[in-house]
Structures are given as structure tokens and as C-alpha cells.
């Protein structure tokens, strides 16, 4: 049963996740998106997709390190917001960049590695969004967890997509890459070096009561 505080907290997080879109809409409405508004919309929705992917991947390490298990209750919502922003990003691309010229889009996806990687990551995110419901989690059982490990690939693809599109200034992609490396490194470390965690972590992860989301 959800308690009242959790409901409030979820509502607040939900509202906060719309702030980036809200600011974009406001700036668009007031004509403050600069000389090339479509570029700003493309960049911004792409950036927020990456940020939400990284936040989603932060939930588990943060929960384990802090012992605050309630964090897991926000993971699905954060992941779905990553999907929400990538849908806006993709829509911007097929509509405002390519104007539904599907021949050009197919050529673009096939020919340009940064678009290939970005598109593949978007496609891989779709089954994760589709299987995010409680019913799906129950129905898929152990396979749900295996399927949702695709998020690692999606996040790597997202960073590579960004890395390959910049002209010379790699500083921002490097920052995203470093954060992702730390988040994935933490997981590798926990999976492959359990001996070092003796006394901290039991060999098999303990089930967390009240959620079926695994690790």
C-alpha cells in the first residue's frame, strides 16, 4: 500500500520532470529560443533524455550505498521520463529536421553512424517502456530483469550518439561518459568482485519487500 507521503513525493517528482519541457515551451512561446529554435529544441530534448537515463541508472547505486530503499519506487517513473524526452527528440528529428521524408530518414539512419546509434538506442528503449507496467513485470518474471538490462546499452548508445555529433568540443560528452562509466563501473564491480564486499553484501541480493523490480 502506498502511503500518503510517497504519493506526495511521487507527484512532486512527476511535476519536476516536466520542468525542462515547461521551460522549453515558455521560451518558445516568448520567442527566446534564439536564432535557430529547432536546433535548441533538438539539443534540449536530447540532453534531457541523457540526463534522465543517467538519473535512472543512479537509483540503484544510490539506494545500495545509502540504504534508502524507498528510492526504487521512483525508478520506473524516471525511466519513463527518459522515454518521454527521447520521443520528443525523435519527433523533432523526423518532423522538424526531415519533414517526414522517410527515404531521407532511412538513408540518414543507415549512413550516419551518430544517427544509427541514436536511432538504435531509441528503438531499444521501446520494449522497456512497453514492459514497464506492474502486470508486465509479473508476467515476465525473471526475464523482465534480463530485458531491462538493455538500459545499459541504451545509455552507452546515447553517450556515443552525443560524442559522435559534436565538432571539436568533447567536454560535455566526456562528462556524460564519465558519469555513465562510474554508474556502470559500480555495477561491474558489485557483480565481479563480490569477495571484496564480504560483510557488506550477501551473495544473493535480498528481496526488497513490496516491489518486484529486482536490482
Amino acid at each position, binding site marked *: 500500500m502506498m502511503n500518503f507521503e510517497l504519493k506526495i513525493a511521487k507527484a512532486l517528482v512527476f511535476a519536476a520532470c516536466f520542468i525542462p519541457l515547461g521551460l522549453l515551451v515558455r521560451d518558445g512561446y516568448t520567442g527566446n529560443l534564439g*536564432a535557430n529554435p529547432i536546433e535548441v529544441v533538438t539539443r534540449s530534448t536530447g540532453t534531457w533524455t541523457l540526463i534522465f537515463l543517467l538519473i535512472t541508472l543512479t537509483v540503484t547505486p544510490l539506494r545500495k550505498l545509502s540504504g534508502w530503499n524507498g528510492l526504487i519506487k521512483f525508478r520506473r517513473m524516471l525511466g519513463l521520463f527518459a522515454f518521454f524526452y527521447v520521443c520528443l527528440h525523435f519527433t523533432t528529428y523526423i518532423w522538424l529536421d526531415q519533414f517526414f521524408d522517410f527515404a531521407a530518414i532511412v538513408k540518414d539512419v543507415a549512413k550516419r553512424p551518430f544517427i544509427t546509434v541514436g536511432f538504435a538506442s531509441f528503438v531499444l528503449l521501446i520494449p522497456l517502456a512497453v514492459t514497464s507496467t506492474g502486470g508486465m513485470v509479473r508476467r515476465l518474471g525473471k526475464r523482465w530483469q534480463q530485458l531491462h538490462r538493455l538500459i545499459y546499452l541504451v545509455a552507452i548508445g546515447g553517450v556515443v550518439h552525443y560524442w559522435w555529433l559534436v565538432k*571539436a568540443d568533447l567536454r560535455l560528452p566526456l562528462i556524460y561518459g564519465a558519469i555513465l562509466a562510474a554508474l556502470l563501473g559500480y555495477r561491474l564491480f558489485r557483480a565481479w568482485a563480490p569477495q571484496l564486499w564480504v560483510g557488506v553484501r550477501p551473495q544473493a541480493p535480498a528481496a526488497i519487500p513490496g516491489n518486484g523490480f529486482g536490482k
Partner: protein
Amino acid sequence: MLIKKPSDIKSSEITDKKLYLNRRQFMAAAGAIAAETALPGLFAPPSPAYAGEKLPGVQKSPLSTAEPANSFKDITTYNNYYEFGTDKYSPAVNAKSLKPRPWTVAVEGEIKKPKLYDIDELTKLSSLEERIYRLRCIEGWSMVIPWVGFPLSALVKRVEPTAKAKYVELTTLADPKQMSGLRSSVLDWPYLEGLRIDEAAHPLTLLGVGLYGEVLPNQNGAPIRLVVPWKYGFKSIKSIVRIRFVEQQPVNTWMKSAPHEYGFYSNVNPRVDHPRWSQARERRIGEFFKRETLMFNGYADQVAQLYAGMDLRKYF
């Protein structure tokens, strides 16, 4: 105990900076008039030097396009000028620290008349013209810009290149005190560009000193920049401090940074893609739909013969 001492001068009594500067201009003008009366023709009026000042005697040019120009705001707030930051909105903010006067341009190399030009002497080599040109950035956007400047050919003729002068190499200022972007090594400073000498002497090739009839704003490359309308924008090097005539083809900065992506020629060509994105279409700033990119940015009639017989896929 700290006692705050009131200022001796009330703020209302301080002369406004604008008036103060106007007073300076008035005194200079008065001086010039006095001198002109005594020795006619000896003193020219002071040259406009700072962004916003109107450039006098600018002629219209038949080489201008009739397409509507982008707004002054778009042209001055959406700039690629990595010396002032790598995003396009930073230069308008960060370039305030650039000092366009005093400024000299060293003209040297394979020429008979090398000289260190003062900027105001250089801009008087030829009468100023307004040239409304299309500008196509390699990133896939474009603008129409009413430049003010004079043909680079006027300088080329003046300095008398020797037979060895096959290329012209141009260099941007690299002063970390004035250019905050130099703190990061995203590019190999100073920024350097080059043209073949026949490209440099082409009538379309401009040394730009103004925009919309006024002195060039810092973020657009004050006090003097190159404008080569049939090449991608990065070829049109800003805030030039050196022009050197050389025998060997210069290695321009972007080519050095990624040789498989940026060539020496970098002519606008819808059929030769950047390795990472298509060059077939462009977004004209201010327009919703993309438009087809034209060969040589629409200047094929004037410049195609410069590249007759060349494989433009190889010499991209």
C-alpha cells in the same frame, strides 16, 4: 568603527559616458576642422572604430543578392567563434572583452611590399562596399548577411606578390587576455585559414569591416575578417592579425583538427557530404522548412571555373 564616507559627486552630476564620448568626438572633429582650415586635405576625419558606429560612404554592389537579409539580432547572437566559447550564443556575450583598436595587420611573406598595416590605413586601401551575401555553415544552417568591406584583391594588388606566392594564409588574434575560449584547447590556436591566391584575388572575396552599414561587432570578427561566400563559413576567418603569402598550401585549423572531415577547399557542395551529416539541405535561419543547398552556395556562375577539372570529392 567603519564610517561609510559619502561619495563627493552625486551620480546625477556624473557626465553620461555617451555624452563624454561625444564630447571627445566633438573635440577631435573640431581639431580636424581647425587643421583642415589651416592645411586643407591633410587631416581625414577620425575613422569609425567601434561597433554601432556608422561607416561613411558605403557603396551598393551589383554582387549583392536580392534575398532578404537576416536580422541584425540573428547575425550578432548566433555565431561560431570558438575563441569566445564553443556554443553559438556565447560569442555575443564573451566577445565584449575583445579590443578592436588599436589593431595592426602584418602583411608579409612572398610579396614585394611587406608592411605592418594599421587597421585604419588598411580599410582605406579601397572604397567600402555593401555586399549582401549568403553564408552557409558546414553545420547545415545558413543566413543572408549585409557585409561592408572591400575586395581582398585590392590588398593583393597593393603588396605585389612574387611568383612564389601560391597561397594566402590568414591568422586570427590569439590573446588569452581578450579571448576567454583560448583557455581550452578544443582547437590548435591561433586559428588559421588559407586560400589559393586566385581565390583570394577573386572579386567576390571580401575583407569585411562592417555589418548593416555599421562597424563590425566583435562577435562577428572585428575589426577585420574574411568573407568568402562560396565556401563554408569556417573559411571566413575572423579578427585577422596576419596575412602571409606563401608557396605551400597552408594547413587550416579545422583540417588539422579532423583532416578527414574538413578540407582545405571546403567549397559549399550539396553532393559531397560531411562524413557525419548530409550537406544536401540547409536551414536558413528564420525559416521553418529546409531548403536545398546550392552548388558553391549559389555562386557557381562566378567561381566554378576556379575548380575546372578538379575532383571536388577529393579536394573537399
